[in-house]
C-alpha cells in the first residue's frame, strides 16, 4: 500500500472493480444464474410494492382519517425514513468500509488508503441515496396526493429528498467507527452476538406485526379509528412540532411564514449548517481513523483461534460428528441467523402471528378456525428453520472431501445431521406449542384452543418437521452447491433452500387450509357434505404426515452410500 497523493484514476478503477465484483461481472453468467437474478429482482419488486401499499394505508390513516396537516405528517414520516436510512447507511458503511474481505487484498495494491476509502465511500453514498429515495419518495408523493398538494410541492419534494439523503450518510460515517470498535470487541463472543440477533429479530417482527395489525384494522374498520381521538391527534402534533431538527425538512417544504423561525428559507439555513457540521465531522473522523480501524478488524479476526485446548475430549464417533456439526452453525453470522436465531425467535413470531390471524379469523368466521390456523402458523415458521438442513452437505465447502475419507460411513454422518436438525426442529416445535398453549388455551386467552388441539398440532408439526428435514437433506445430497472459494462459507441462498422454503410453505398452507375448512360442520363441496369431528381431521393429517415421513426417510437412506459417493464438488 502506498502513501501518496490521491490518484483519481485509481479511485475510478477501484470503484469499477467494486461494482464488477458485486454484479458477478467477472464470470460469465449461466442461464440459470440469469433466471435467478430475474427471480431475485421480481422478489425485490414484490417486497417494495408491499412496502408502498403499507405506506399508502398509513398515510391515509394519518392525513385523511386523523386529519393531520401535511407539515406534521411529513415531520413524523421524515423522522421514520431518516431513522431507517441511517440504520441502513451505518450497516452499509460498516460492511463495505470496514468489514469487507477485500481490504486485506487491497492493502497490497499500489493504491493509498484514502483512495480505497473514497472509492468505497462513493458506493456507500450512492447506496444511501437510492435507499433514501426509495423510502422517502412514496411518503411524499402519497401524502401530497391525499392532501391535494400543488405541483410545486412535488418538485420541491424531489429536491428535498436529495438534500435529505446527505444526513444519514454523514451520521453513518460518524457512528461507524464506534460501531466497529464494539464489533471488534464482541466479534468472537458468539453467544452474545446470537442473543443480540435474536432480540433484534423479535423486536423488528413485533413492530412489523403491530404495523400490519393497524393496517388490517384500518381496512376492516371504516368507522372512526383511534387516530381520530383528539388526544392522540394532539400528541402526534406535539411530537411532530418537537421532533427537531428533522421537522425542519418538512418546514422547508410546506412550512408557513406566520412563525418567523419556521420560515422555509431560515429552516433551510439551519439544515445547511447542521449538514455541514455533520459532514465535516464525518470527514475528519473517517480519514483519521479508517486505516487503524481496518487494521484492528483484520487483527482481531484471528483472536478466536487463540483459545488453547490442552486436552482433547474423548467422544464417541457419533458425539464427535454431532459436536462438529453443531459448532459449524456458529461458523458465520449467516448460519447462526438462519438457524439458531430463527429457532429461538420462532415462538415469539408464532405468538404474534397467531394472535393477529386468530383475531381476524375469529371475528370473521368464529373460533372454529383457530386450531387449523395455529397448525398453519407453526408449520410455516418451523419450515424456515428446517430449510437450513437443505445446505447440510453444501456447507461442508472446501472440506467436503474430508467427509469422504474419514472412517465413518456416510449413513452415520447423515444420521448425525438428521439427529441434530431433528432435535433443534423438535425443540422449536415444542416451544411454539407451549407458547400457543399458554396464550390461547386458558379462559383469559379466549379458550381458543383445547389441550387436545395443542397435542395433535404438536404431533402433526413434529412429523412434518422430520419429513421436511429428511427431504431437505436428500435434496442437498442430490444437488449440492459448494462454495469452494474464500473460506467456503455459503453466503447466498442456493436453490435447495428456495425449494425447501417453497415446499414447506406450500405444505403448511395445504395442511392449514385442510384443517380450517374441514373443521366446519355441514361443509358442502359439490354434491358431498362433510361433517367431520376435529379428532377425525387431526387423524387424517397425522396419518398423511406419518406416511410422508416414512417415504421421505426411505428416500434419504435407501442407496445413500452409493448416492453420497457420487457427489463431486
Amino acid at each position, binding site marked *: 500500500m502506498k502513501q501518496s497523493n490521491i490518484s483519481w484514476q485509481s479511485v475510478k478503477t477501484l470503484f469499477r472493480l467494486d461494482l464488477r465484483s458485486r454484479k458477478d461481472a467477472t464470470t460469465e453468467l449461466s442461464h440459470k444464474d440469469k433466471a435467478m437474478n430475474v427471480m431475485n429482482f421480481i422478489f425485490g419488486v414484490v417486497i417494495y410494492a*408491499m412496502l408502498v401499499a403499507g405506506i399508502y394505508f398509513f398515510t391515509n390513516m394519518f392525513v385523511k382519517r386523523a386529519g393531520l396537516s401535511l407539515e406534521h405528517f411529513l415531520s413524523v414520516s421524515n423522522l421514520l425514513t431518516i431513522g431507517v436510512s441511517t440504520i441502513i447507511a451505518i450497516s452499509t458503511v460498516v460492511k463495505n468500509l470496514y468489514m469487507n474481505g477485500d481490504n486485506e487484498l487491497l492493502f497490497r495494491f499500489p493504491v493509498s488508503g484514502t483512495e480505497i476509502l473514497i472509492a468505497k465511500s462513493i458506493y456507500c453514498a450512492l447506496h444511501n441515496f437510492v435507499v433514501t429515495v426509495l423510502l422517502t419518495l412514496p411518503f411524499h408523493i402519497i401524502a401530497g396526493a391525499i392532501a391535494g398538494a400543488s405541483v410545486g410541492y412535488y418538485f420541491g419534494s424531489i429536491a428535498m429528498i436529495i438534500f435529505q439523503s446527505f444526513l444519514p450518510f454523514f451520521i453513518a460515517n460518524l457512528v461507524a467507527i464506534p460501531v466497529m470498535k464494539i464489533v471488534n470487541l464482541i466479534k468472537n463472543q458468539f453467544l452474545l452476538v446470537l442473543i443480540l440477533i435474536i432480540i433484534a429479530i423479535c423486536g423488528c*417482527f413485533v413492530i412489523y406485526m403491530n404495523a400490519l395489525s393497524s393496517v388490517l384494522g384500518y381496512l376492516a374498520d371504516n368507522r372512526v379509528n383511534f387516530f381520530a381521538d383528539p388526544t392522540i391527534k394532539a400528541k402526534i402534533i406535539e411530537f411532530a412540532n418537537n421532533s427537531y431538527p428533522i421537522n425542519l425538512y418538512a418546514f422547508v417544504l410546506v412550512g408557513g411564514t406566520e412563525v418567523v423561525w419556521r420560515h422555509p428559507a431560515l429552516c433551510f439555513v439551519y439544515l445547511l449548517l447542521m449538514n455541514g457540521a455533520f459532514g465535516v465531522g464525518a470527514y475528519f473522523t473517517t480519514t483519521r481513523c479508517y486505516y487503524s480501524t481496518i487494521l484492528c478488524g483484520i487483527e482481531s479476526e484471528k483472536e478466536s483461534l487463540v483459545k488453547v485446548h490442552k486436552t482433547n475430549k474423548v467422544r464417541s464417533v457419533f458425539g464427535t460428528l454431532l459436536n462438529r456439526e453443531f459448532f459449524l452453525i456458529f461458523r458465520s453470522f449467516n448460519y447462526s441467523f*438462519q438457524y439458531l436465531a430463527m429457532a429461538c425467535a420462532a415462538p415469539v413470531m408464532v405468538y404474534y402471528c397467531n394472535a393477529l390471524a386468530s383475531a381476524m379469523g375469529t371475528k*370473521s*368466521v368464529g373460533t372454529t*378456525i383457530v386450531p387449523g390456523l395455529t397448525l398453519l402458523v407453526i408449520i*410455516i415458521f418451523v419450515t424456515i428453520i428446517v430449510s437450513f438442513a437443505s445446505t447440510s452437505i453444501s456447507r461442508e465447502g472446501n472440506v467436503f472431501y474430508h467427509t469422504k475419507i474419514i472412517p465413518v460411513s456416510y449413513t452415520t454422518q447423515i444420521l448425525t445431521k438428521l439427529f441434530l436438525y431433528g432435535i433443534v426442529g423438535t425443540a422449536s416445535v415444542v416451544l411454539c406449542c407451549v407458547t400457543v398453549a399458554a396464550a390461547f388455551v386458558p379462559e383469559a386467552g379466549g379458550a381458543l384452543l383445547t389441550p387436545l388441539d395443542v397435542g395433535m398440532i404438536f404431533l402433526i408439526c413434529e412429523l412434518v418437521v422430520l419429513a421436511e428435514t429428511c427431504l431437505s437433506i436428500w435434496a442437498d445430497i442430490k444437488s449440492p452447491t459448494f462454495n469452494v472459494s474464500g473460506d467456503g462459507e455459503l453466503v447466498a441462498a442456493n436453490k435447495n433452500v428456495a425449494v425447501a422454503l417453497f415446499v414447506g410453505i406450500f405444505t403448511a398452507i395445504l395442511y392449514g387450509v385442510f384443517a380450517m*375448512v374441514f373443521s*366446519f360442520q355441514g*361443509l358442502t363441496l359439490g354434491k358431498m357434505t362433510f361433517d367431520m369431528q376435529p379428532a377425525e381431521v387431526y387423524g387424517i393429517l397425522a396419518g398423511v404426515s406419518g406416511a410422508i415421513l416414512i417415504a421421505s426417510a426411505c428416500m434419504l437412506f435407501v442407496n445413500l452410500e452409493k448416492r453420497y459417493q457420487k457427489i463431486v464438488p
Partner: protein
Amino acid sequence: MKKVMVGILVIIPVIIVLVVAMVSVFVSMSAHIAVDDITLDKNYLEIEYDSEQSAFKLSDLLTATVTPDRASNKTYRWSISDLVCIDEEYKAEWDAGLIPAPAFVHENQEVADEEMLGDIDDDTCSHDGYLHINTYCSFLLKAQAETHIATCRVYVVGFKVESIKVIIGDTMTVGQNARIEVETDPVEAIVESWIY
C-alpha cells in the same frame, strides 16, 4: 441468505392473513358457521315511564352484536323474564288477569287488547320488535341468537310527578298544629320545589 430470510419473514404474515381471508370467504359460502356469541351494548337500562308512550323499538334501546361476522344465521329474538311489578295496584289487577302484563315484547307497535292478556313467558319478537311498558316494573331483557343469550336488566322508573296526595288528619280543632305530609306518585319522582 439473510436477505432471503428477512424477505420471507416479511411475506409470511401476509400469506397467513390472505389464507385466513380466503378460507373465511370459502367456508362462509360452503359450511354452516355457528354463532359464537351475542353481546348487548348495555347490561343495565333505566327507562322513564311515560303513560303517553308505552311502546319502544328494541333496536333503539339496545344494540345487539352477533359474532362471528359471517355467521350463517345472525338473526336473534328478544324476550323478557323475571318480571317484577312495582306498582301494587297494577299488580293486583294483572294477577287477576284483568289487564296486560306490566311489560312485554311484541312484533308490532300496536297490539290488540286480547293479545295483551296472553302469557308473556312465551312472548318473543324479532330484532325489529317492540317493548311495551304499561307501568313501573323491572325485568330481564334477553336477546338470543342460536343457543347464545345476552341479557340486560331493565328498570322502568318515573321521575315525573303523576299526582300528589296530601296526608293529614280528618279533623282539626282551632289552635291545633298538624304536620302535612305529601306523597307523590310515583314515589321516586324527583320534585324540585314545593309551593304550599
